[in-house]
Structures are given as structure tokens and as C-alpha cells.
């Protein structure tokens, strides 16, 4: 790790101001950023800690929408998002207790790791990413692995999830790290079904539109019979081949539909 300065603003406005420095970077739970700094894959001269900003913490439910503050930890979502059980369950299955007590939704969604869980929930729910500057629809937000629509210095202050009729997230864990080898989030809304897949594609989280079409007419695992995704463009690494991941996408989507009930 290289040396850096740290600032601890207490409001979003102060944080945004502090991030105006060219070399500054936001620090939330540090569960991704700190290891990155340790491996010297990033070398910001200044870290702006978001963990002292009260206004970005907490979960609230209102009129069919669950809003999660950008600085809310996975553990707090697991405990507090009872209005959206699939989301609470997803948060409760991230990493281990230490990761869940530090890591935040803002950090996860900003980072957009191709094996992370939250991007599947955000995309699968058609959620809205709220920043200090604007609101971004999930479909516009994710732009390939580790890439998002966020501008330099833009802070995620909240994510707004429309609560579906039914939903479930199924994760096939890479046993050592417990990241998703493949994870599928399925959500059924009055106007259709959304299926978001994480862990599998070299493009990061994506919507499996054929499955969405099939499920929108008939929300049952059987509706997916015969559907599959191509292994082209799937991640092949030490934990699994692209073909295996493609196979898992189909299996896990069925499981998610079954689990959603």
C-alpha cells in the first residue's frame, strides 16, 4: 500500500467537495478497495471516507419501494429489508460476517465486480441508482465488468428498489471466497419478469432476455425448458470453464423461479 491522506466528511456535500481533488477516491466499507490498495492496483493520494455520513445509511420502505442508503452495510440490509425478502437474503449471503459488517451496497454497486451479488439485484429489480447528481436506471447503469455510468467523483447515495410480487436470488458459491461463480436474480412484476445474471459473463452482470420473455408468459421453472445461454463470452478461469458457467445459468435460473414460488 502506498501512503495516502484520509478525510472524513459528515455530509454528502462535503464528500462531493472533497472528491473534487483529482487523485481522491471514495472509501466505503473498504472490503474491495483496501485489498486493491494493498496489491497496489490503485494509488489514490487521498481517500474520502463515506462511513461518517449518516444521511446515506439505512433501509426504508414506502409505497412499494425499498430504498437502501448507499452507505448501508450488507448486514444492515439483511436485517432491515424485510419488505423485500429476496434482497435481504442476498445481502445476508454475501461473503462472511466480517465482510457483511463492513461492506456497503454503494461500494458494491460502484465497483461492479463481475462476481458480485448486488448488481444482480439492482439489474434484476430494475432499480434506480441515486447519486448526489442524478438518478440512473439500472439498465443504463451497468456498462461491463468494473464499469458503470458513474462520473468521476460521483457518489451513490441510495438505491431504490421497486418491490416485486415474487423474487429470489440463487448463488452458486465459489467455495473458497464465497463470491458468485454464477448468481441469478429473478423478479416478477405486474408488467413482466426480469432475470439478471452475475458471475458468468465477461461483460459483467446481464439480463437474460429469452428467459424473461418465457417467464413473463408463464412464471414457472418449466417455462425455461430447453432454454440455454451460449458459452461464448462466458468467464473461463481457475474456478470453472465458460461452458460450466453457461450451464449453471440455466440451472440456477430455474432454481430461482422455483424459490420465488
Amino acid at each position: 500500500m502506498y501512503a495516502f491522506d484520509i478525510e472524513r466528511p459528515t455530509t454528502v456535500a462535503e464528500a462531493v467537495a472533497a472528491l473534487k481533488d483529482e487523485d481522491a477516491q471514495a472509501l466505503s466499507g473498504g472490503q474491495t478497495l483496501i485489498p486493491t490498495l494493498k496489491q497496489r492496483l490503485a494509488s489514490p493520494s487521498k481517500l474520502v471516507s463515506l462511513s461518517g455520513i449518516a444521511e446515506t445509511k439505512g433501509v426504508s420502505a414506502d409505497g412499494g419501494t425499498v430504498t437502501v442508503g448507499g452507505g448501508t452495510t450488507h448486514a444492515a440490509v439483511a436485517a432491515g429489508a424485510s419488505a423485500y425478502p429476496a434482497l435481504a437474503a442476498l445481502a445476508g449471503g454475501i461473503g462472511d460476517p466480517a465482510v457483511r459488517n463492513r461492506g456497503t451496497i454503494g461500494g458494491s454497486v460502484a465497483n461492479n465486480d463481475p462476481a458480485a451479488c448486488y448488481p444482480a439485484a439492482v439489474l434484476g429489480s430494475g432499480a434506480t441508482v441515486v447519486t448526489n447528481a442524478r438518478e440512473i436506471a439500472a439498465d443504463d447503469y451497468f456498462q461491463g465488468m468494473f464499469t458503470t455510468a458513474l462520473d468521476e467523483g460521483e457518489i451513490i447515495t441510495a438505491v431504490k428498489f421497486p418491490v416485486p410480487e415474487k423474487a429470489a436470488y440463487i448463488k452458486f458459491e465459489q467455495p473458497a471466497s464465497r463470491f458468485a461463480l454464477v448468481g441469478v436474480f429473478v423478479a416478477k412484476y405486474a408488467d413482466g419478469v426480469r432475470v439478471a445474471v452475475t458471475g458468468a459473463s465477461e461483460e459483467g452482470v446481464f439480463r437474460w432476455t429469452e428467459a424473461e420473455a418465457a417467464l413473463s408468459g408463464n412464471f414457472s421453472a418449466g417455462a425455461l425448458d430447453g432454454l440455454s445461454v451460449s458459452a461464448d463470452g462466458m468467464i473461463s478461469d481457475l474456478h470453472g470453464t465458460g461452458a460450466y458457467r453457461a450451464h449453471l445459468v440455466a440451472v440456477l435460473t430455474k432454481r430461482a423461479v422455483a424459490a420465488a414460488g
Partner: protein
Amino acid sequence: MSVSKPHPHDSAPLHVTGAARYIDDIPLPANTLHLAFGLAEIAHGRISALDLGAVRSAPGVVMVLEAKDLPGDCDCSPSNHDEPLLSGAHVQYLGQPVFLVVATSHLAARKAARLAKVDYQPRDAILTIEEALAADSRFEDGPRIWERGEAGEAIDTAPHRLEGRIEMGGQEHFYLEGHAAIALPQDGGDMVVHSSTQHPTEVQHKVAHALHLPMSAVRVETRRMGGGFGGKESQGNALAISCAVVARMTGKPVKMRYDRDDDFMITGKRHDFRIDYTVGYDDDGRILGLEFQHFTRCGWAQDLSLPVADRAMLHADNAYWLPHIRIESHRLRTNTQSATAYRGFGGPQGMLGIERVLDHVAHAVGRDPLQVRTANYYAPASDAAPAVQTTPYGQPVQDFILHDLTAKLAAQCNYAERRKAVAEWNAANPLIKRGLALTPVKFGISFTLTHLNQAGALVHVYQDGSVRVNHGGTEMGQGLFQKVAQVAAARFGLPLEAIQITATDTAKVPNTSATAASSGSDLNGMAVKAACDTIRDRIAGFLADQAQCAIAEVQFADGMVSVAGQSMPFAEAAKRAYEGRVSLSSTGFYKTPHVAWDRIAGQGRPFLYFAYGAACSEVVIDTLTGENRILRTDILHDAGASLNPALDIGQVEGGFVQGAGWLTTEELVWDRAGRLRTHAPSTYKIPACSDRPPVFNVSLWDAPNREDTIYRSKAVGEPPFMHGISVLMALSDAIAACGGLYPALNAPATPERILTTLDQVRHV
């Protein structure tokens, strides 16, 4: 008596409170220096330019050593003198130490080590078994071949034959405590070394060699390790030598410990193997002729690979009478970490080979694999000459208890009923399949290098009656010290608390063998017994003399010494003996009887006896993904007349879980550049406590050893590891429920590998 009782580990309270001292907990003297290696970034080639300027000028750096700065090659090898401490220009694996940073702190040394600029001229690296065979890159001139009878002819004339192959991965030791050493320079160039080693004498020998000192000038101490599993038999040499060399150069204390990632990248692991087989058998699945070809990647240096590969051959029979057998063993040299000792020392790999054959044959003849296994068992234990069968290497199998043991386990775990239940479940459930397997273990006990089968001890009785015990064995969590203390307490008739356990120390007991080959209690228990008996007999002789009675009338029991009917506390007896000028200190020595072995011919009696056991595992797989789980495991294990059933059951449980981990989740992955990609717990999965079977019944087959071992107990360190084989066979059994073809499942059986095998079985 203190033996045969389930005393907890002597350090258990210290372990759980964090008060047990490991090397890294030893308070350091002022001005201690710290070391870190700079590691090679290519698997094979030459270093054309090494620029260490930035390393030298980094904060806290005191000096930086290259190979040419060392006092000689500082060889680290336990066998072949082929492991220079630093690579020099010739790089032989990715992760090989190239230079050594000496700094004022551990962190400063590690940070500086990354600043080197190295130019390489890479050469083609030999990474796989196939590449090594193609290049004829191997240790020894050619394959080792042992045979009995006419395997080829027996196969040709057998009613049936089949061929197959199993590939099994290596395994990282993942001792919780990484490697560490401290060197403390002494008067006149002498050196004291604290090392997390299973083999203090080896460290003493290698440090003395590096410093050009006689062994007598080097003292090595080891209080305990946080796990060893064979990974600390030879792999600690590099750290100890580095510390000693720098301590000699600077006159300062020096410490080194590996970061976990470095430990993965530098040190050797279990040997991975490919085993090819051709077997001839009859309608009942009885094996008539068998040919094995073992191929193993030994890595860049010889280390202990020859005896490891030998032991794989020595367990190619496991529990089975194989009248005609030929075993060919290829020990291949590759540009990877130098594979080393790991619990079982090749035995598990050889045993998995024959267990696969039995399973394959059972599938071919359509019988329950347990039936085929028992049909091939050696004849039951018997001293009647015609009944005694011999192993392929000519050792009579005189203590074969597996018929009874298997029958008892099968009854205890309801094997027959559960076999039916599994079949019914599988018939009713198209997606989730269950599998069941009961596999035996017969494991040879003794070092195959015969001269290692010796041990020494040093016991002192003080004038207040307290007793201090020292021996050559090392404690790595297995409970050796407690077992040996139990022996000492029993010999003096004292309560266990009266025995002081002490660190292993080459200045107290010289010329020791590694604590390895499961032989720690067998060897050191006997040596301590001999020392205690010498002192006890001296005290008895003195007291008998005083009381004018026979020595036999002096009894030691319950903390008391009775002399011709009159009783006194042991302390009083010790005081009297001291005042009577009786020596209350003695060494003890033991050498294993009867063993003799010719490894080139593959003939003799390498083992004093065999340890036995059997395990039955039931698993479940998801046929859509290959996900799997162990549902239940029952183990019946032979520890002879157990010295300590609590510790022994702990070893059986831990061994099984570690063995199951080897064959399921623990996957080492090297990329095409020869870089080990799994070098941390984030990528390499060892079983956790929560991965043990939810139903896990372990019991001991409590019957005295046929051989005259310490209180007729049996060694228990390695044999239970191989109970993990039952899990792989159960997984294969579950897959077999999905199609007609034999599921040739390789290890580790990750979900993806299970799914691939399922596809092969289904698409006939």
C-alpha cells in the same frame, strides 16, 4: 495408570486461550533483523540482469544477498544436495527464492523485496506429466519397477480385463502456522535456532553445513508447531539456514517467517499422480493380474520424492492379495514447487489407485463394491504358515484384521440396509442422487529408510520428585507430548501432572528422526520408557538395598513407592536416592526391531506392522450442477491398545476430513506460465469445521498390537487420512446411478468435474 486414558491435549487450554507460544510469539532480543525472499517470476530460464539498487536503498534495508554473496551454496535439500538456498542465474520454478532481503522489520523486508528489477531469458518450462515424459525429465535413470509373478500373462489369461486411468491432484498443507525461524548467534560462532520444523536434527545438520560448523556447534529448539502434516519435514530448512547465515554475518539475532502467499508459492505440496491400470479378473471380481503405472510430478528438486513414490508403490496393494502384479513408477522432474512429504507420504496416492481398480472391477461385474473388496482381501490373521500371504514386496501379512473390522463397521453403520435405501432413493429421485461406499485402509508403519527407525530420550528426576522428559519427537498439535508424558507417568507410577513436558532440543537428544511416518509415539514412547525404567530401577535397587529386600518388592504406583510393604511418596524416594548419590538422570534409546528393506529390489520387510481401519461414507450429488455433500461417515479405526483414545479419535476425525478435502474441494491450479494461481484461502478451499459430515461416528478398534510396541498401541497420524477415499468412491457411486458407463471420476471431485463425469456416464 496414566496410559489408555482420554486425557485432553496438554496444551489445549493454551491453544484455545491463545497463550501457546509459537515461533512468532517468542519475544525477540533488541536489534533483531528480519528477512524476506525475492521470488522468481518465471518457471524456467536464466536471469540476465538483476538490479537490486532500489531494494538496497529501501527504508529499513540492512543488506541484500544474492547467491554469490552466500558462504557456499547453503544447500537446503534433505536428500540430493540439489537445492541451493538462492537460485543464482538458473531459475527452476516460479516462486523460487532469488535474493534475500535483510531489514529492520518484517514489513520493511517484504516491501523492499518487491522493488527488484529482474531481466529473464525464459526457456520452455516443463509443467505437466506429459511434458516431463516427452522430455524424459525425471529423477533416477528410469522408472522403478517392482513385480511379483507374471502380471501380463495373468491378465491375458484372465476371463475379463479392463483398463483405466485416475488422476489425482496435489494438496497444500495449509498448516495454520506458516513457516518461521529465529537464529540467535552465540559465543565463538555457535548458533541457536528456533524453527517450526518436524525435523530439528535436519535443520541442525543443514545449518551446520551452511555455516561450515560441526553439528555440535548448532542447537535447534522446537517447542511446537501449528500443524505440520509433512510440510515442515524439509521445507523449513531454507528459513533456518537464511537466519543462521545472516546472524553469522551480522552478529545479530535474525528472524524469518513466510507470509501465507509466499508459503504457497515457495514450499512443496503433496505429489499429484496419474495412475494407469490394466487388470485381469474373474466373474466374481477377484483380481488375477494387475499392472500399474504411477506417474508423479516431483517438481524442480528431489527432496523426499523417491521415498514418497516408493511408499505409493508400497500401498498399491492396500488390503488386497494380488498374486501377479507389476508396478512401474515414474518420478518426473518439473519446473514447479518441489513436492514434498504430506500425511501418508505417497501412501494415499497408491492406495487410491487400487481402490479405483476395485471399484471399476465391481462395476464391471455388477456386484456391490464391498463384496468385491472383501473377496480380494488378504487372508485373515493367522500364524499358520500356509495361510500367511505376503505383500507384493514380500512382507508377510500376519496381522490382517480387516475381515472382522469391516464386518463390524458394516453392521454398525447398517451398510446393507442403507445400500438398499440408497438404491430406492435413486430410483425415486431423478435429479438428486445418493452414493455409498465402504473402503478399507491398511497402512504400513515404519520409515522405509530403515536407519531412521530409532529414537532417543533424556529423562531427569529431580530431588523433589518432579520429572522432566525430553525426546526427539516434535509436537505439531497431534498430541505426541501428552502421549509420551503418559508413558513416563505410567513407568514411575506418578500422576500425569508430575511430568514436565519440554521443547524438542538437539542439545538434549541428538541424531533424531523427523516426527513423521506416524512413528512419533512408537519411537519416542519406547525411548522414554527405556530412560524411565533405567532411573526407576536405580531407585528401586537403592531402596531395596537399604531395606534389605528384593528389588521386586519395590513398587511404584499412585504417586507412592512401596518398599517391602512400607509406603512413601515418590518425592521422598527421589530425595533418598539423591542423598544416597544415585544418578537420577538417564538417556533412553529404541530401535524398531525386525525391519529390513531393499528398495531397489522392492523386497523385504519395510514395516514393523500395519495399521487398519475402514470408513463408510454416504454422499448426495445434484446431477444438474455437480454440487455435493457428505451426509454421513462412520469410521472404525485400529489404534491398537490406544495410548489415549481422545487424542487418537481426534487424529482419525482430522485425518478423514483432511483426506476428504484432498479429494473434493482442494484444487491447486497452475497456469500455462507455471504460476500457482491458488495461493491463498480466497482461491484454495480447505474443509472447515462446518464441512465435516453432519453425522460422523468415529470409534476405535481397541485390540492390542500383535507387535511389541509401546503399550501395544498403534501409530495413528497418517492412516486415517486415507478414510477420505470413501468419499470419492461414494461420489462415484452416486454418479453411477445415472448411467451405464463406469464413472471414472478424477480428484479433486469439484462440482464441475462431477458434472463432466456425469455427462460421460449419461451419454453412452
